[in-house]
C-alpha cells in the first residue's frame, strides 16, 4: 500500500502501545526525522517509561518539532496519539508552521500489541493499557479528517503495516523544477487589448479562433508567461482575458496564480452571497453574455488556481499579494490568505481601504518575489521583491518582468477603464523604494557571510557590536556605502640589515605562490577614499534609492568632506569621467572608484597634530635640553658618555621623524591642494572589475588625469617579472629611489589583479615612513632586532577575508541584490577591522 506523504508535512503516528510505531518509523524514515515520546521522556528524566515526565517530554518534543518544521523538514511523531488532546496540539503545531498534518494509523489487534509488550522487559504495564488505547483509537478513527489531518492513512493488521510504502509527494505549489525563462505579468483586470499588446511586446505570437478572438499565445523561444492573478473584474473584457490566459495555461505556455478577484468571482458564480463591488458586477455582466459551457470552464479554471508558485529551484516565488519567506512552499489557510489578500495592519486609510502592511520592507529571503495586488505608479525593487501591478485598468500601465533578466516591459493603458477609489501609490512615508533603514538583525550577532571567492566568512558578535557603533554614529547613509576597502598586509619582514621592509621579500613571496608578473604601484601619501560617482542627479534616486549625486567616504565609511566640498569634488570627478568618455565605455551611469586622496593632512589633521606633531614637539624641546645638560655634566668630568651619545642619536631620530610626517602635510583650501589618485574602478552598472589587469585600471586613471591634471594625481608604477633577476633588481631600485626621495613606499599586486587565495597586494614601506608607524627610534639596532619579530599571519588572513567580503558586496551590488545584502558585506568588513591586530602592520 502506497502512503503519499507531502514534502512539507508533520506525520503523526497513531497506535496503541505495542502496535509497532517505532519499528515502522525506523523502517521508513531517517532517525533524525523521528521524534519519539519515549526518547524524550528519557532525555528529560533518564527513564523512557516515567509517565510523570510526559509533560516535560512533550514540551521538549514540540520545541524540536517546531524547529524542524520551521526549516521545512518532514517530521514524524512517534507517540501513541490515541487521545484527542495530543493530536490537537500537533495539528496546531503543523498549522503554525504552515505544513500539512498527516496521520498514519497502525490498527493492530490487541493480542499482538499485548504479546509484543510482554516481550519487552521495560513495559511491565498490564494488558488493560493496550485495551484502553485500542478503545480510544477506535473512537478516533472516524474523526481524524475532521480534526484537521489533511491525509489519513489507516493500516489494518500486521500485513498492511509490513507492505506499506512511503511515497513522497510534491506540493502543488512546488514548481522548482521549472526554470523558465519566464515573463511575469501584473494585474490585468479585464484589459484584454493591453494584454495582447504586452504579449506582442514580449515576443509572443497570439493565436486566434475563427471569430478572431485570442485563445492562446506562444513564445518562439519557449519562454512562459506567469500571471500574478487578478485577471478579472473592473475592465472591459474579462471573458476575453480569461479566454487568452486559459488557452495559454492549458497549452503549457503560461502559469497563473490565484488573485483575490478570481477567488471572489468563483464564489459569486456559484451563487454564494458576496458583495458585488470592486468591479465584480462588470465581470458578471460580461460573463452573462457567454455560454454556460464557457462559464463552467471559467469557474473550474479559477477554482483550480493555486495561491502561489515556487519556481526555478526556489529562486522565484509568484503570489498575487506577495509572500514572506516563512510561507514559501508552505500550505495552510493562512498562507493562501496572505498570498491572495496580503497582510493588513487592521487599520483603514482615509479612503476606507485597508492599510496594507509593507511586508516587503522586512523581507530578507533569497528568492525573488513577484506580485501585484496593490497598484503602484512604477515597479521598484524592494529587498528583492517587486510589485508588478501598475494599475492598467485605472489608466496606468500593464507591466511584465522578464526573469531571470530582471527587465521590466510595460504598455500604457489605452484609457482609464475604471476610476480608482484612491490615487495610485498612496503616500507612504516609509514604503516605496528601497528602504533607507536596514534592520538591526541584518548586522548584529554572529554572522556567517557567504562569499563567492572564499566561501563562508564568520563575523563574531563582539566584532559586530563594535562596528554597529561606528556605523551608526559616523558612517554615511548605507545607500551610499557600498564598499569598504580591505586592510593590506605588509611584505614579509626583512631578516637583517637596516630595514624592516624591502621589496625583495615581496617579490619572492609572490613568486613562491606562483605569481610571476606583479605590478608595483606607488603608495600615495594620503588617505584612502572611496568615490561613488553618478552621471547626473537622476541616477542615485533610481539606482540607489537616495537623492544626491554620489559620495566620498573613508575606509571606515565616514564622509570625507562636508556636503559642500563633497559636492564640488564629485562635480570635478564627474566632469573628468565625462571628458574621458567613461560613461559610454563602461556602459554605465554610475561608478565606484577606489582611490587615495591627498594630502593626508586633509583628513587626518587631528591625528597628525595631536599625535605626530605633538611627539615631535615634545622631543624637539626635551632632547636638546637633555643633551645640553649631559654635555655640561660631561664637561665636569662626569661619566655620561654613553647616555649622551644615545641622547644625541635620539635627537637625530626625532628630527627625521618630524621630517617624515611633514611630507604628508600641505595646506588645502577647499579643493585647492587636494589631489585624487584613483587606482581601481571597483564596479559600474552590472560589472565588478576585479579581473581586469591593474594596468587597465591605471590607464583609466591616466585618462582622468589627462582630463583634469590639477585634481588627479598619477600613480607611478612598474611591472616586475618575479622570475627574472634583472626585473626584480629594477623593482628594488625603483622602490629605493622612490623612498629615498621621501616616498611612502609601494604596493605590489598581482598584475592580473584578482587571483584566488592570493593577497590582492602587499605593501612595502620606506625606511623613513616607518618612523611614523614604529616611532622615531625604531631604527636603533636594538629596537629593530626586536621589531623584526612580528607575526603577519593574522594580518594576511584578515586582509584576504576582508578582500573577499568586499568583492562579494560588489558582486551583490552589481547583481542588483537588495541593499541589506550589500550592507551585510560592508558591515562585515568594518566588523573585522575592529579585530585586535598590531596596527603597525
Amino acid at each position, binding site marked *: 500500500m502506497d502512503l503519499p506523504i507531502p514534502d512539507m508535512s508533520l506525520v503523526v503516528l497513531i497506535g496503541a502501545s505495542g502496535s509497532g510505531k517505532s519499528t515502522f518509523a525506523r523502517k521508513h524514515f531517517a532517525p533524525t526525522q523521528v521524534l519519539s515520546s519515549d526518547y524524550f521522556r528519557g532525555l528529560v528524566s533518564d527513564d523512557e517509561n516515567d509517565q510523570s515526565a510526559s509533560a516535560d517530554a512533550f514540551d521538549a518534543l514540540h520545541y524540536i518539532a517546531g524547529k524542524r518544521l520551521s526549516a521545512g523538514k518532514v517530521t514524524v511523531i512517534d507517540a501513541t496519539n490515541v487521545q484527542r488532546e495530543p493530536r490537537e496540539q500537533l495539528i496546531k503545531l503543523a498549522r503554525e508552521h504552515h505544513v500539512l498534518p498527516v496521520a498514519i494509523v497502525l490498527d493492530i489487534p490487541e493480542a499482538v500489541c499485548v504479546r509484543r509488550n510482554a516481550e519487552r522487559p521495560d513495559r511491565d504495564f498490564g494488558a488493560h493499557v493496550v485495551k484502553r488505547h485500542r478503545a480510544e483509537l477506535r473512537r478516533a478513527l472516524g474523526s481524524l479528517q475532521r480534526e484537521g489531518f489533511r491525509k489519513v492513512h489507516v493500516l489494518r493488521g500486521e500485513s498492511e503495516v509490513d507492505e506499506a510504502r512511503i511515497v513522497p509527494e510534491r506540493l502543488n505549489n512546488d514548481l522548482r523544477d521549472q526554470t523558465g525563462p519566464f515573463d511575469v505579468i501584473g494585474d490585468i483586470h479585464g484589459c484584454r487589448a493591453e494584454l495582447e499588446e504586452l504579449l506582442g511586446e514580449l515576443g509572443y505570437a497570439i493565436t486566434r479562433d475563427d471569430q478572431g478572438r485570442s485563445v492562446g499565445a506562444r513564445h518562439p523561444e519557449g519562454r512562459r508567461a506567469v500571471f500574478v492573478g487578478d485577471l478579472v473584474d473592473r475592465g472591459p473584457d474579462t471573458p476575453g482575458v480569461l479566454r487568452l490566459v486559459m488557452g495559454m495555461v492549458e497549452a503549457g505556455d503560461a502559469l497563473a496564480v490565484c488573485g483575490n478577484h478570481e477567488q471572489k468571482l468563483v464564489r459569486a458564480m456559484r451563487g454564494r452571497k458576496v458583495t458585488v463591488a470592486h468591479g465584480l458586477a462588470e465581470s458578471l455582466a460580461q460573463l452573462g453574455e457567454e455560454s454556460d459551457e464557457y462559464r463552467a470552464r471559467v469557474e473550474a479554471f479559477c477554482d483550480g488556481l493555486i495561491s502561489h508558485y515556487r519556481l526555478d529551484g526556489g529562486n522565484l516565488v509568484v503570489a498575487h499579494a506577495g509572500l514572506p519567506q516563512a510561507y514559501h512552499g508552505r500550505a495552510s489557510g493562512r498562507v493562501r490568505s496572505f498570498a491572495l489578500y496580503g497582510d493588513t495592519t487592521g487599520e483603514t486609510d482615509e479612503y476606507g481601504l485597508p492599510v496594507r502592511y509593507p511586508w516587503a520592507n522586512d523581507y530578507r529571503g533569497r528568492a525573488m518575489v513577484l506580485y501585484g495586488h496593490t497598484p503602484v505608479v512604477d515597479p521598484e525593487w524592494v529587498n528583492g521583491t517587486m510589485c508588478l501591478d501598475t494599475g492598467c485598468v485605472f489608466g496606468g500601465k500593464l507591466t511584465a518582468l522578464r526573469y531571470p533578466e530582471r527587465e521590466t516591459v510595460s504598455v500604457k493603458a489605452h484609457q482609464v477603464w475604471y476610476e480608482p477609489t484612491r490615487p495610485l501609490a498612496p503616500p507612504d512615508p516609509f514604503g516605496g523604494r528601497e528602504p533607507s533603514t536596514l534592520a538591526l538583525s541584518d548586522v548584529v550577532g554572529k554572522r556567517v557571510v557567504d562569499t563567492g571567492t572564499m566561501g563562508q566568512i564568520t563575523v563574531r558578535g563582539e566584532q559586530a557590536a563594535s562596528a554597529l557603533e561606528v556605523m551608526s554614529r559616523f558612517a554615511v547613509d548605507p545607500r551610499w556605502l557600498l564598499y569598504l576597502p580591505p586592510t593590506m598586509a605588509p611584505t614579509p619582514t626583512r631578516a637583517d640589515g637596516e630595514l624592516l621592509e624591502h621589496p625583495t621579500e615581496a617579490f619572492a613571496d609572490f613568486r613562491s605562490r606562483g605569481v610571476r608578473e606583479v605590478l608595483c604601484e606607488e603608495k600615495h601619501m594620503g588617505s584612502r577614499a572611496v568615490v561613488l560617482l553618478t552621471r547626473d542627479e537622476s541616477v542615485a534616486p533610481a539606482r540607489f534609492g537616495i537623492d544626491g549625486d554620489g559620495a566620498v567616504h573613508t575606509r571606515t565609511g565616514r564622509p570625507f568632506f562636508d556636503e559642500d566640498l563633497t559636492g564640488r569634488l564629485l562635480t570635478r570627478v564627474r566632469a573628468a569621467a565625462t571628458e574621458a568618455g567613461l560613461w559610454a565605455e563602461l556602459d554605465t551611469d554610475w561608478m565606484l572608484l577606489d582611490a587615495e586622496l591627498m594630502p593626508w593632512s586633509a583628513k587626518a589633521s587631528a591625528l597628525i597634530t595631536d599625535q605626530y606633531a605633538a611627539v615631535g614637539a615634545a622631543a624637539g624641546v626635551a632632547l636638546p635640553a637633555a643633551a645640553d645638560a649631559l654635555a655640561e655634566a660631561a664637561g665636569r668630568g662626569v661619566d655620561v658618555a654613553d647616555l649622551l651619545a644615545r641622547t644625541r642619536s635620539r635627537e637625530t631620530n626625532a628630527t627625521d621623524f618630524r621630517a617624515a610626517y611633514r611630507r604628508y602635510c600641505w595646506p588645502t583650501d577647499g579643493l585647492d591642494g587636494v589631489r585624487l589618485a584613483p587606482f581601481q574602478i571597483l564596479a559600474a552598472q552590472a560589472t565588478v572589475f576585479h579581473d581586469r589587469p591593474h594596468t587597465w585600471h591605471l590607464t583609466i586613471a591616466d585618462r582622468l588625469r589627462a582630463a583634469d591634471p590639477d585634481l588627479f594625481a598619477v600613480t607611478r608604477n612598474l611591472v616586475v617579472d618575479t622570475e627574472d633577476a634583472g626585473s626584480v633588481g629594477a623593482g628594488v631600485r625603483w622602490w629605493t629611489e622612490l623612498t629615498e626621495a621621501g616616498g611612502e613606499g609601494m604596493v605590489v599586486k598581482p598584475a592580473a589583479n584578482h587571483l584566488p587565495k592570493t593577497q590582492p597586494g602587499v605593501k612595502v614601506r620606506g625606511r623613513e615612513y616607518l618612523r611614523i608607524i614604529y*616611532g622615531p627610534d625604531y631604527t636603533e639596532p636594538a629596537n629593530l632586532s626586536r621589531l623584526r619579530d612580528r607575526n603577519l599571519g593574522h594580518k594576511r588572513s584578515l586582509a584576504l577575508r576582508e578582500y573577499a567580503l568586499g568583492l562579494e558586496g560588489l558582486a551583490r551590488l552589481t547583481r542588483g541584490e537588495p541593499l541589506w545584502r550589500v550592507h551585510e558585506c560592508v558591515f562585515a568588513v568594518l566588523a573585522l577591522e575592529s579585530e585586535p591586530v598590531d596596527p603597525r602592520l
Partner: protein
Amino acid sequence: MLLTLTTNHTPATDLGYLLFKHPGKAQAFSTASGTAHVFYPRADEDECTAALLLEVDPIALVRGRRNDAFTLGQYVNDRPYAAGSMLAVALSSVFRTAMIGRCDQRPGLAATPIPLRIRVPAAPCWAGPDMAERLFAPLGWRVDARPVPLDTEFPEWGDSRYLDLRIEGELKLSDALKHLYVLLPVMDGAKHYWVGEDEIEKLLRAGDGWLSGHPERDLISLRYLAHRRGYQRTALDRLAELDGGTEAEPVDVLPEAAVLAEDKPEPLSATRRRAVLDALREVRAHRVLDLGCGGGALLRDLLADPTFTEIVGCDVSAGALDAAQRRLRLDQLPDRARDRVALRQSSVTYTDPALAGYDAAVLMEVVEHVDASRLPALERAVFGTANPRHVIVTTPNAEYNVLYPNLPAGKMRHTDHRFEWTRARFQDWAQGVADRCGYTVRYAPVGPEDPVHGPSTQLAVFSRKEAA
C-alpha cells in the same frame, strides 16, 4: 624626559646631601617607568643643578600589555619625551627620602626653605600656561610657562600641549618635590597614567600640609584621580585611527558646573531627567524604552519608580551598556527589580522590531548626536518600527547658547553634537515627523528659561494619534 633642579643656596653642593645623590657621579635607577638617570650638569659652591633624565623604552612598554596595545597611539607617543605622570612616578622613587624631608647629613637644611629653580622642558599640560600658574603660584612659586609650538614649519597649527616650564621660589626641597609629584600628573591628564586603588592614599600623603589650603584643591584632586577611563574603547579607537581621526572621547564643552543655574542648585542634566520622568508619568507610560541610555542615569530614576514596570535601556555602544550595567548594579538587584529592567544594544538608525509595542520611548539628548542626513532613518526606526504610543525627545535649544559665558560664539555644547536646533527648527522637524508618522506633538521648556532666547533645553512629547 628631563627635569632639572637648581639651587643657589650656599654651599650649593649641599643639594647632593638633600637629594641623597652624589654630585660627582652619574647614577642610574630602575623605576617602574624606565631607567632614571641622576647627574649634575653643574655643582659648585654658588650653584648646583641636579638633572633627572628618564629613559623610557617604548617598545618594551607596550610589549607586556597585549590587551590594549592595538592602537597606533600605543606605539608612537610622547612618553619618551614628555615630563608628565611617568616622570612624577620616577621622581618619587628616586628621591623618596628627600621627598619625605629626611636628611641625616643636613637635617636643618631639609627643614629650611632654600632658593630653588626648576625646569621641566616638556611638561604636558591640558589647559595651557595659565593652568601652570594656577597650580604652582599659590604655593609660592614664580611661574614662567612657555608653550611649545607644535611645529615651527606649520605655524597655523598653533601651540602644542607642552610647556617649557620654569618655576622658582624659596621652598623646602621636600615640598618642592611633593608639588611636582602631585601637580605634574594633574597638568598632564594623559590616559597612560593608570590610577590604582592606592592613589588616593598617595595623594593625601604627598598633599599633606599644602593641598587642603590650595585654591584649586578640588580640581587637583579630581584631575589627579580622574584618568580612569569609564570603559574600554580600544576597538573604537582603532577604527577612528584608520581614518586618521584621534580617539578623543567626545566631551562636554560646557561642564555641568558652568551651566547657568544660580537659582537652581540642581544641574541641568537632573532637571532634564525630572522633566522626562514627569512627561512619562503624565502620559501614563509603564513600559518604557530609553533609547540612547548611555551610562544609565535615566534608567536609575526609572527603576526607582515602581509605576515603570518594564524599562529597556538601549544604546549603540556596548561600552556604554557595560557602564550602565555597573551603575545600576544589575547583578546585585533583587529579582523583582531586575526583572523590570533590561539592557540591549540597538541603534536608532537600524530598525529593531524587538522594540515595538512599548508605551513610550525616550530620546533624551540623542537626536543631536545623529547626522542630519540620518534623521529619516531614526524617524523610521523609532516612529515607524518601534512605534510606541508616545515619544519624548529632548535636545538643546541653540538660541540659549548665547547665555553661556563659557561657550564661544558659534560653538556647540558638546563636541559630538552634529547640530543644535533653534526652537523653530526643532518644531519644524518634530511637526514633520508627527505628520508623516501619525503622531501629534506638543512642546515644553526644560531648565532655566529666558524671555528672549527660551529654555536651555527643549522637550517634545509625541503621541500616536489613536493613543492620544
